[in-house]
């Protein structure tokens, strides 16, 4: 039996051929090393993300999450739900909190769930993968598996919003969370201090208000460069995509020369644990990361 087992909630973006499929590849490699067994929640559905609010209303949002809770709890009893996407984690956690807080909302949720043949009996815990690494393993344990330390590489840990606020990782400071920097350092890399670590990239408004969001992204990338980072690292698929894929647009508009790779913590860990560039999904970068590819086994 694997050392740790969780009910896995990949989210829409981490499916095959979707925008964060490289995240999924690296998470699978990382979990193999750590002996983590992730079992996908059967027939899980989208959480609706933060941006669904305008159309959805309250109860429909909560029942979408509640369906996943019921499916997890029925099929994978006793396992915590683990999400890799910050928005999925936040949305699910929020729904859990609200439903637990109000007997009226719980009753309505159960009534709606009945239509899909489901009920919630025990409310499962909802965790982000980064939380699992920090809390269930700890940096010391994570460090024991390092075979190929990321020596000499400089990373800007971009925590962004939704793994950090409003819930965050226990014991962290909202204005300057350290867990991502500590993961980087545990893997043998250097985490450069810079002032845009928790700046919002614009989130889903990168689609609807591209100019404003790209101005946010410009500030983030610029600050990473100014402080000597060679790569940016994130815990969130939307942060990753936003900060990576618009650099070309920003260059055209602002006459900058941005071309900085944006990676997931799990990709760094896969390489540091001795995995190949392919195991880490490095072929999935729109801006390739040659320095990381060069040291990969």
């Amino acid at each position: 039996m694997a050392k740790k087992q969780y009910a896995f909630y990949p989210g829409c973006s981490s499916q095959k051929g979707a925008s964060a499929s490289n995240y999924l590849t690296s998470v699978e490699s990382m979990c193999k090393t750590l002996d983590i067994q992730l079992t996908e929640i059967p027939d899980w559905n989208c959480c609706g993300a933060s941006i669904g609010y305008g159309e959805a209303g309250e109860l429909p949002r909560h029942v979408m999450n509640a369906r996943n809770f019921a499916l997890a709890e029925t099929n994978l009893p006793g396992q915590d739900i683990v999400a890799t996407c910050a928005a999925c984690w936040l949305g699910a956690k929020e729904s859990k909190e609200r439903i637990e807080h109000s007997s009226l909302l719980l009753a309505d949720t159960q009534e709606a769930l009945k239509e899909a043949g489901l009920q919630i009996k025990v409310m499962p815990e909802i965790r982000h993968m980064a939380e699992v690494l920090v809390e269930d393993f700890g940096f010391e344990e994570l460090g024991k598996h390092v075979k190929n330390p990321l020596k000499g590489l400089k990373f800007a840990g971009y925590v962004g919003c939704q793994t950090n606020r409003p819930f965050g990782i226990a014991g962290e400071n909202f204005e300057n969370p350290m867990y991502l920097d500590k993961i980087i350092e545990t893997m043998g890399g250097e985490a450069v201090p810079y002032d845009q670590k928790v700046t919002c990239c614009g989130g889903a408004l990168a689609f609807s208000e591209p100019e404003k969001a790209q101005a946010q992204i410009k500030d983030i990338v610029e600050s990473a460069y100014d402080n000597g980072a060679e790569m940016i690292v994130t815990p969130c698929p939307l942060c990753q995509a936003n900060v990576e894929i618009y650099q070309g647009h920003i260059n055209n508009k602002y006459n900058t020369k941005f071309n900085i790779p944006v990676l997931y913590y799990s990709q760094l860990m896969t390489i540091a644990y001795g995995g190949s560039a392919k195991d880490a999904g490095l072929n999935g970068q729109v801006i390739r990361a040659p320095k990381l590819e060069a040291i990969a086994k």
Partner: protein
Amino acid sequence: MSANQQMAAKYKNSFLKEVEDQVEMGEWVKMCMQCGVCSGSCPTNFHPGWEHPPQEIFMMIRAGKREEVLTSPSMWMCTSCYNCIVRCPRKLPITHIMHGLANYAHRLGVAPKGQPTRAFSKLFWNNAIATGRVNELKLSIGLYFKDAEGKINIGQGIKQGLAMQKVALGLLKAKRLNPFEIFGGHKCKDQKGIHAMLKKARELEEKRKAIKA
């Protein structure tokens, strides 16, 4: 009478009461002490888009400025960054109140027409619930080829599509956008159950709101 006129008539003299009853987390508005911390917490480059920042919106609700609040594009500027929530000395769930107000204005049909985030939110939610999972390809096609009212606009689509072409090609090359999604792509098995569940949820929510009104 439109839904909007009905509500305005029901709550004649108290927009605050209306917000408390009908808007998600609206009951918190009266707790605001007007310190202004939230308004300074929104992402910097979005500031010019906020006609009325959150603190001002709360003041306007109390002052009964119903029309100005509900038709404002301001709430649609919220990026869900949660900066305000963790800083507010009165612990107001500001993010959710902004979402709640936007959703209420949208439901009443008075939110600004053509507001791009309003259009995107609708597109996103409908895309997600159609099969239970987001189809990223259809989502981007919908985004670039439809105008804010959801009508297909080829001219606009081509212009925006061209601007986004490099981004899409980059994703395709990296195998992060799948052209076959157009034929269906990722979906849930129990779509029927999901649709029935959501229908029930909408009914229940409307019932609860109607009782309060």
